[in-house]
């Protein structure tokens, strides 16, 4: 296994030869980045330095005490850093080099759909007509923005197979909250007070957390041996107190639920709504539509399926699409197109006149900047391109899984469910832990030395020592081959000496961090 790693920055280090990155545990051996200890912007502050020069005072100056009484004012200004522009640039550019990122390399973080962020999107989102448009601009002077939102609503509705869309929710979790509050409004409007919401035990933690926030009791549904919902358990728990079933399909194991029609029927038979968590929609765009299956409410993660830069953890957006029976309760305002008056152009507007609406979930109209990017993406790909996107995502996942079987990785990290997967799959690290004495965490940490972002670890909870791998359609066959080879090498190395992985990483800007110490005695700000 001596193939070169052309994209591996570690090869610029003359100490490193061949395939394997450095694995020295001697603290005296340090990379340049490791020698460069962390310094905060506050520690770089020197009294009297500045980057900001205020515009000139062009009005007659009045004593501040006469404008704002001293008792309402602070005794001294906030202790922000004092630092010049070049030093701010150096500081944050230096920090940036201490991040791994999608534009740098493979990022198979399961459930997060780390796909390429087209560069065009940043350019169009930054156009003054969008970026400097005030959210309370009169609708007559925001026609382009409202039309973009209206068109995006239409596209998302078509993709979901559900006709009514609200773009307002700001993240998947926010969309979930909207969805469960819509469910509550729907039942209350029918004079029903239901108390429970069902979530499979494979669900993302956001599902049960959302249910509690919306004032319902969580009832867990078990998972069957094939990885789908345990339909008998569902049947036993579905009664007239159930308001909703929240389902992710494909689920968090990367599997399409084969009994989905039965599940939908059971839920609808007790009068509950069926909620589609769109976290894994990237597998099925243009192939299958939640609305056609019988889902009432869908949330999209624009930052996953419709590519937003993940920004180090936000921003995103979580629009929802709903069926006719849920539509009256959608958040307000809604973007609408009004029929042309006197033969003129149609007019786009914000409709607040929605008496049954659950109300707002946030300020203004949602994360508009994300709408610009996702709309650009949908227009770039078109119907065919979107389908190809999902097909390629599923092809890549299955190919990688096949490579891991072929090269023997599966012997220690077998697929938790041995069937065709959708856009992601789960490996179990239990055999590696037992036979090689390395845990999933250790494997993940050793991958860091190979300049690969590890898969999601320890989720789903159902699988012991889980690794959730989502390659996305972005990746080439060569990248997938390379990842399979790296994983193989990490396991080979562990077979020779498990301590290599247990003590990894060695080459990152910092090595394994004391998370327990951080949690025991939290230091979450700098004393100034």
């Amino acid at each position, binding site marked *: 296994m001596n193939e070169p790693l052309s994209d591996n920055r570690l090869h610029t280090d003359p100490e490193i030869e061949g395939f394997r990155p450095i694995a020295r545990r001697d603290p005296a051996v340090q990379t340049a980045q490791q020698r460069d*200890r962390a310094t905060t912007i506050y520690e770089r502050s020197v009294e009297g330095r500045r*980057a*900001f020069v205020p515009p000139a005072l062009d*009005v007659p100056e009045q004593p501040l005490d006469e404008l704002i009484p001293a008792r309402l004012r602070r005794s001294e200004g906030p202790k922000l850093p004092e630092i010049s522009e070049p030093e701010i640039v150096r500081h944050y550019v230096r920090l940036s080099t201490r991040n791994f990122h999608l534009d*740098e390399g493979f990022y198979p973080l399961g459930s997060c759909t780390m796909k390429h962020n087209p560069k065009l999107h940043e350019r169009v989102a930054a156009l003054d007509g*969008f*970026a400097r*448009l005030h959210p309370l601009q009169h609708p007559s002077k925001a026609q382009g923005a409202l039309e973009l939102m209206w068109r995006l609503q239409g596209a998302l509705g078509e993709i979901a197979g559900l006709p009514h869309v609200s773009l307002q929710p700001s993240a998947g979790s926010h969309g979930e909250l909207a969805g469960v509050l819509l469910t509550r409004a729907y039942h209350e409007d029918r004079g029903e007070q239901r108390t429970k919401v069902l979530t499979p035990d494979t669900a993302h933690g956001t599902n049960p957390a959302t249910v509690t*926030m919306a004032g319902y009791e969580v009832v867990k549904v078990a998972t069957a041996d094939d990885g789908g919902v345990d339909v008998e358990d569902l049947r036993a728990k579905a009664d007239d107190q159930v308001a909703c079933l929240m389902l992710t399909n494909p689920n968090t194991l990367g599997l399409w639920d084969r009994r989905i029609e039965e599940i939908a029927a059971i839920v609808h038979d007790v009068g509950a709504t069926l909620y589609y968590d769109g976290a894994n929609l990237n597998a099925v765009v243009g192939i299958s539509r939640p609305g056609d299956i019988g889902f009432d409410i869908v949330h999209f993660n624009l930052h996953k399926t419709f590519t937003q830069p993940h920004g180090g953890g936000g921003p995103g957006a979580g629009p929802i699409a709903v069926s006719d029976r849920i539509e009256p309760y959608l958040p307000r305002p809604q973007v609408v197109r009004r029929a042309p008056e006197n033969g003129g152009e149609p007019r786009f507007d914000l409709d607040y006149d929605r008496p049954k609406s659950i109300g707002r979930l946030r300020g203004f109209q949602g994360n508009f900047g994300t709408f610009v990017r996702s709309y650009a993406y949908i227009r770039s790909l078109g119907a065919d391109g979107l389908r190809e996107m999902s097909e390629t995502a599923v092809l890549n996942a299955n190919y990688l899984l096949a490579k891991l079987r072929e090269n023997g990785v599966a012997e220690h990290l077998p697929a938790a469910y041995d069937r065709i997967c959708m856009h992601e799959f789960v490996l179990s690290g239990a055999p590696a832990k037992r036979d090689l004495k390395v845990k999933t965490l250790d494997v993940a940490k050793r991958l860091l030395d190979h300049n690969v972002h590890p898969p999601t670890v320890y989720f789903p909870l159902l699988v012991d020592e889980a690794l959730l791998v989502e390659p996305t359609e972005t990746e080439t066959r060569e990248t997938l081959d390379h990842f399979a080879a790296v994983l193989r090498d990490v396991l080979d190395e562990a077979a020779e000496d498990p301590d290599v992985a247990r003590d990894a990483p060695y080459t990152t800007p910092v090595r394994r961090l004391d998370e327990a110490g951080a*949690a025991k005695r939290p230091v979450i700000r700098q004393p100034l």
Partner: protein
Amino acid sequence: MSRYTSATDADRAAMLEAIGVASVDDLFADIPEKLRLARALDLPAGLAEQEVYAHLRALAARNVSAADEISFVGAGMYDHYVPALVDAIALRSEFLTPYTPYQPEISQGGLQVMFEYQTAISELTGLPVSNASVYEGPSAVGAAGYVARTENKRPKFVASAGLHPHSLETLRTMSHGYGTEVVEVPLRDGATDPDALAAAVDDDTGAVFLQQPNFLGAIEDLDALARAAKPTGALLVVAADPIPLALLKPPGESGADLVVGEGQPLGNRLDFGGPSFGFFAATEALLRRMPGRIAGETTDVDGRRGFVLTLQTREQHIRREKATSNICTAQALNALCGMVYLAWLGRRGMVELAELLVQRTAYARATLDALDGVALLHQQPVVREFALRLDAPAERVRERCFEYGIDPGLPLEGDGLLVAITEQRSRADIDRLAEVLGAAVREERRERAAV
């Protein structure tokens, strides 16, 4: 082939062979035939990059942005200048394209920014605990409500009518779910009435919500209001505008338990309402009730300083139905913009900026108050926003001003007008506003007289 994927026909064939299936369709065999979409999506065909750019540019051109007119609209988002420095740093792939720092060893940049940001928010709000940000302002108010709910489980919130209407509505939407009622307390001369507040607060009150400065721009006397709000053990939540906090007493020093707010004024663009970030700060006692991500300082195995996500047992991925919130992401990129902006302003600059705003706003307030048919809606001290009452229909006055390239501010119920001043509005702009607004009010009154 899509330009964002790489698989050629040859790749696809080789990959299918490795998988051991004949076609891509076979990969979807688990989906019952009748649940598969038998047609193409009814969406337009894909476009070349230059076509998409031209289309988006045409849509953008149909908006009138703050670059195209002289706008005095604020009401929660403000046209402050965003320095070039912010764009240069935020557009770096290293900050733009990673996700949440689950692997801290390769995410020290983002984690340290969070730590620096949390420090700045603590400094502005006067509270020791800050998270790494939440979605945006009004939903941060809603999130504060949920903290109160889980902390004391009382069935009632008391909210000042000076809260931003979007915050008030978001709080109502969210609290309806867990069954907490929201009672509104009126304003007296533009500021929250402390007597009415004291009368509304009782043993059932879980939290009191105030805004600083309030929606009408008035600086609230938080010391006095805290005395009215806290005797029965309710939490005090203050939604604050961060720029005025350069001058105003930090709400934490007045007894606020939670200080939250809209972060857009700090180096984030208007973007027609988002994305921006919400800041969220609390007392030490509420540390383990906090929603969202929190970065903490620690050391690595060799003793190097480093940063990690910490106190994660609060969060949904661990505590699930018992989590403090369902939120998973912060608004890390927007909070980064906020942090870079605060570093740019610096210790002196932020105060200088706020003082400039106070002076220009005082000038604007006096100049507009002197117009016929225009009066101050309240006499309270303000920082960079104030409310007027017009003796004419405010919506129509606004539309008249549009014809002169001026947006005079946000019309309020009862012919009020909410006017915001940023450092991008010069004295000449303010004088022009006075001229145009005066004429518009005059015209409307003349028309009314004619009828």
